């Protein structure tokens, strides 16, 4: 399969009030380039869905946004990513506070093997956000409420987080992420391990969270992208092929590759 070279992204990769701005981002794993010259805005309080076939670089790109790729030694990033006009790859930027601002929810629900309370309290604790126990309790309750989990777990905060069902675990992970009050939440296929009802809950939650947070979600389910997002970005072999409002992408995609992917002609 030949690689599309120097593709100019179709559609509207830029928006009026961007929270995160990627400009000419390239990612290399050793000598192999995984992402080619991606420029994309993620607007404040919007949900942007990143879709594309496996290995297209959408997860890699997402992980660049809070420097999760730093943990991989051979990973190298070019171009710049600006969070509120500040380059997150600038030498003076420390990843620890950055990740507090740009939180992440992972594919597999991964609660810590601790109690539900400690799971949510972990972030505020390590960042020293609270001085008193009652403040911490307040944050935990508020986060669990926002994640729609409070009513289900309020009587068993001391139970292990790993004892919850898959969907509850994922909402616990979301609660844990929002407990440090991030500005952006990155979600890497958050529903791929969940049943449809749990998925629907998470999608509902994403919709509610949009009021307070900027959300970028990678998903393999095109229906999910269509349901939760306002804009959709299509990646193909490390290139950003098309970015458009979601309703447009799913009825009248601009690029033939997008069309072929979302109509199930390859992928």
């Amino acid at each position: 399969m030949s690689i599309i070279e120097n593709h100019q992204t179709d559609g509207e990769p830029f928006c009026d009030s961007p929270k995160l701005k990627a400009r000419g981002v390239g990612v290399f794993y050793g000598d192999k380039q995984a992402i080619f010259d991606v420029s994309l805005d993620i607007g404040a309080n919007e949900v942007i869905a990143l879709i594309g076939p496996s290995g297209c670089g959408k997860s890699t790109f997402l992980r660049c946004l809070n420097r999760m790729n730093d943990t991989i030694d051979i990973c190298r990033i070019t171009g710049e990513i600006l969070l509120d006009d500040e380059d997150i790859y600038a030498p003076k930027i420390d990843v620890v506070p950055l990740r507090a601002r740009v939180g992440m929810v992972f594919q597999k629900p991964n609660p810590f093997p601790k109690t539900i309370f400690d799971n949510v309290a972990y972030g505020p604790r390590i960042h020293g956000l609270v001085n008193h126990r009652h403040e911490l309790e307040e944050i935990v309750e508020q986060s669990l409420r926002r994640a729609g989990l409070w009513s289900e777990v309020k009587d068993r905060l001391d139970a292990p987080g790993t004892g919850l069902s898959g969907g509850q675990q994922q909402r616990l992970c979301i609660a844990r992420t929002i407990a440090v009050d991030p500005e952006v939440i990155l979600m890497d296929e958050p529903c791929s391990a969940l049943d449809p009802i749990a998925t629907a809950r998470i999608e509902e939650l994403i919709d509610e969270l949009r009021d307070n947070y900027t959300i970028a979600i990678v998903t393999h389910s095109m229906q999910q992208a269509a349901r939760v997002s306002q804009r959709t970005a299509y990646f193909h072999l490390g290139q950003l092929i098309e970015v458009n409002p979601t309703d447009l992408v799913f009825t009248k995609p601009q690029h033939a590759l997008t069309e072929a992917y979302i109509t199930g002609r390859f992928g």
Partner: protein
Amino acid sequence: MANKGIPVEMNFSQHISGQFNSDLEAIRSQMMEMGGLVERQVANAIEAITTGDTTPADDIIRREDDVDRMEVAIDQECTQILVRRQPAASDLRMVLAVSRVVRDLERIGDEATKIAVHALEVSGSTNGGYCQQSIRYMGTEVGKMISGALNAFARNDVDGALDVVRNDKLVDQQYSAALRELITYMMEDPRSISQAINILWILRAIERIGDHARNISEQVIYVVSGADVRHSSISEMEERAHKDKDDSSSTGA
């Protein structure tokens, strides 16, 4: 915009799911079949009117049920595809368009039946020959429109579809002229009114068939370019159809 180096080895004409391909192909060909049937119905109805021969008229009324059944069947298959495949983009537009087109076809069938019914009434009378010229002309024209729209659908031919829309304008003009002619007859001889009304209904039905053919053409434009051109003027339609078509053809070549 130039070709952006889409991998040529890739074949985008087929879905990964072969069943999906054949499902889509099935509704398309059934719609064409239904179109053919409706087209014949219209042709027969016009023939019945212009020749005064009532045999085709009876035939038309009998076949009306077939048309209705086909509409229901195709519509059901469209629903099935929507439910099972959740089609997107061009597939979605195709399914929606087929569903809308079969409704228009069914209406055309209804109009053909109306013509046949009135043809039976007109055939008995002595002076049933009002506006024969107009009827013949309009009849042939809408017949061509139907086949033109269906062909455009089959070939994804936006220009063919636009031709059909333009022809609808001509049919409408001819309808207005025929209407004035009928009014003249009715003013001359009030006894002819009841007969003239029958002719009026027939003219009206033919004109409606033209409108439905135009609707089908609009769906062709929707399928091909993604532009919803319903309720817009011809110039608007041409502009949007070609603009969107350029966009998608440049990338989708």
